[in-house]
């Protein structure tokens, strides 16, 4: 059982890291038109996420594969029950990846604009859908004795839509800060100003969502039973305010790091709330899929633990190295000379 519990934590951490990383490239992509109305500037916004979006998205692949390997019934049930929703997420991710890669492969202006629009729309859709999906998980799915009893439209309930909006606000703020420190000049100035405004929206939505969760979900029970867990939402709040303070002082880079540190406890708060369930049931708690009834064998979880213990530190090492390599913003001349983007 120790392994299963450990893997609940690792599962939560993998999803959290995914959102903290891909969050900025999703947000930067869907806010690109806001901060860079002119085509040339916009290209640089997209170039700023260019080296990273692919590596960021592998955290999603890993989180998905880890769900499959460590909690097979969760993977199977979630994906088959919510078939149309998963299909939409999949389409938006494919459109986004194709658009980000295609946009620079032809010199025509309308070509680039078309793919940038596609990248922005699909990034927004992906952020929204992830929010709706996790909103439904936090709220509990309609899992009855015969499996899922809900409908596709039932997934679009007010609470989950609120989660969707909150995800969008979170990634918008995060992405704007990324642009603010990676695309010097007008885009950075506009992104900084917009981030300042987006922060208030984010704060308001966070408060509303917290109250909504308190009132209409079972998320609060774990926090009341184990008070130390309250540190997570507190950390979220503290990092959020620190980020705003840093941004006001013109320290966009530090503000970005703080928003990274805010996203982590935000997601961990949600996962701490549903423990020990990965897929809680809204109809009858006993029917939820939990670490007790849905995990892989201890042998498999042991192998998986070794895998992540060996490889993840290496992955984090070279991804940090890549962030240092591209720490200084990419210049226009540099991109032209490289000739690949």
């Amino acid at each position, binding site marked *: 059982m120790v392994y299963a519990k450990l893997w609940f934590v690792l599962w939560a951490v993998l999803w959290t890291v995914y959102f903290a990383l891909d969050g900025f490239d999703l947000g930067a992509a869907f806010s690109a038109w806001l901060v860079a109305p002119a085509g040339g500037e916009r290209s640089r916004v997209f170039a700023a996420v*260019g*080296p990273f979006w*692919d*590596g960021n*998205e*592998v955290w999603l*692949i*890993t989180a*998905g*594969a*880890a769900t*499959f*390997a*460590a909690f*097979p*019934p969760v*993977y*199977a049930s979630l*994906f*088959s*029950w919510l*078939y149309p929703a*998963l*299909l939409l997420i*999949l*389409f938006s*991710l*494919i*459109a986004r*990846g*194709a658009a*980000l*890669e*295609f946009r620079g*492969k*032809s010199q025509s202006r309308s070509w680039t604009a078309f793919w940038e629009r596609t990248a922005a729309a699909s990034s927004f859709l992906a952020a929204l859908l992830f929010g709706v999906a996790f909103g439904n998980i936090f709220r509990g799915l309609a899992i009855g004795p015969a*499996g*899922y009893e809900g409908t596709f439209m039932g997934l679009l309930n007010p609470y989950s839509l609120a989660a969707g909006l909150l995800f969008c606000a979170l990634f918008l703020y995060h992405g704007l800060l990324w642009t603010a420190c990676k695309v010097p000049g007008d885009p950075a100035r506009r992104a900084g100003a917009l981030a300042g405004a987006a922060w208030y929206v984010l704060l308001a939505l966070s408060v509303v969502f917290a109250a909504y969760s308190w009132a209409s979900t079972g998320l609060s029970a774990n926090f009341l039973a184990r008070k130390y867990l309250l540190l997570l939402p507190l950390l979220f709040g503290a990092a959020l305010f620190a980020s705003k303070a840093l941004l006001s002082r013109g320290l966009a880079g530090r503000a970005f790091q703080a928003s990274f540190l805010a996203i982590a406890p935000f997601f961990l708060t949600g996962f701490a709330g549903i423990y020990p369930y990965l897929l809680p049931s809204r109809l009858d708690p006993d029917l939820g899929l939990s670490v007790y009834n849905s995990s*892989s*064998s201890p*042998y*498999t979880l042991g*192998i*998986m633990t070794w*895998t992540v213990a060996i*490889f*993840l530190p290496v*992955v984090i090492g*070279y*991804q940090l190295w*890549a962030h240092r*390599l*591209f720490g200084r913003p*990419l210049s226009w001349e*540099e991109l032209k*000379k*490289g*000739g*690949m*983007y």
Partner: protein
Amino acid sequence: MVFWIKHVPGADMDTLTLSRLQFAVTAMFHFLFVPLTLGLGWLVAWFETRYAAGDEKYLAIAKFWGKLFLINFSLGVVTGITLEFQFGMNWAEYSKYVGDIFGAPLAIEATAAFFLESTFIGVWVFGWERLSRKAHAAAMWIVAFATNLSALWILLANGWMQHPVGYALRNGRAEMTSFTALVFNPYGWIEFGHTVLAAWTLAGFFVMGVSAWHLLRRGQDDLFQRSFSAGAAFALAASLLVAVLGDVSGGNAARNQPAKLAAMESVWQTRRDAPYALLTVPRLHGDGNYLEALEIPHGLSLLAFHSLHAEVKGLNDFPSQDRPPVLPVFIGFRTMVGLGTLFILLSALAVFLSRRGSLQDFPLFLRVLVFAMPLPYLAMLMGWLVTEMGRQPWAVYGLMRTADAVSRTVTPGQVWLSLGGFTLFYASLGVVDFWLLAKSARKGIEG
């Protein structure tokens, strides 16, 4: 309206049939991009290394092929997610039953290989001015290594479906009991060798074909002759080895999946000293052959078991519900083998002529190579058709039938929708990608 829908051909297909069709469509589309990635990465890394070693001409060559690599790479990545998702979406019963052992190689692929590939491709594309020449070339070596490592883990997962090992049936599912058995499953390694070498052959033919197109038009002869000779050598070495591994694969199927081997050759009678019928015409409904002629005595026993007298099992020995569909597997196998032989001949001739420096004296041959570019793709798709259809009716050979693997809660309507969506969406992405590839390939080498 309802009446009309009922009379559209195929409208009565169930979730199982539709899900199989969807997996075939999405996997085959994905596999239009993967093999070029697996092979071309090595060649780009090689070209750039020559540049890093001081031969300036190779910078333009590396960039030209690198650009084609990237256009091809992006769709390979995004269409791969679909395959991972589909295990959960369409094959939920499969995922529940074997996830304990099947999930691990997928998770390891992501952590050990996919991260490496995706991070360093970004470094390579954007890092031209930020790394030394050697370090930049190293980034492409890492990408090439990581893509091939990815293939290893995916094929170990597929190898387990072909030949399940290292598990025990407990708690109503297949649980992993030996990770080393999974990792050293010979079936997976043979598939890996065969697939990867075929992919390298494909990349070699791609480089030869594009180079031949330019050599026919002249203008950048030196650069494309260099590209051509590297591609030709790569294709010859790989196509020879792929044949060796093909022989091993056949023997492996004969020992572990006799029904697959029997379908590949459309053999119905079990017999010792089995002959090889050069001319075999199977019946359309998979219940025997119209014709078996031009028999080579002992041929099949020799091919399958490397022994004159070995017994080869025929399809009559399997109850009809345990037989794979014979006709497509048979045609797929013969097509693949025929094409593989052709690749050896063509690449041997290409190496010979490019060494003599007389390629451009044979424009017809160059033209043949341009038109040969799609053939390795066809051969690879046929190979997968043999592997996957030949395993039917099993999802996991001998352990779980495909019919038991499909999701129970997913309706045919949902799969119709997704299948239609994938087909339209993929077709348009495919057209755009092909157009981009053709455009960049025609443009030629800059600088």
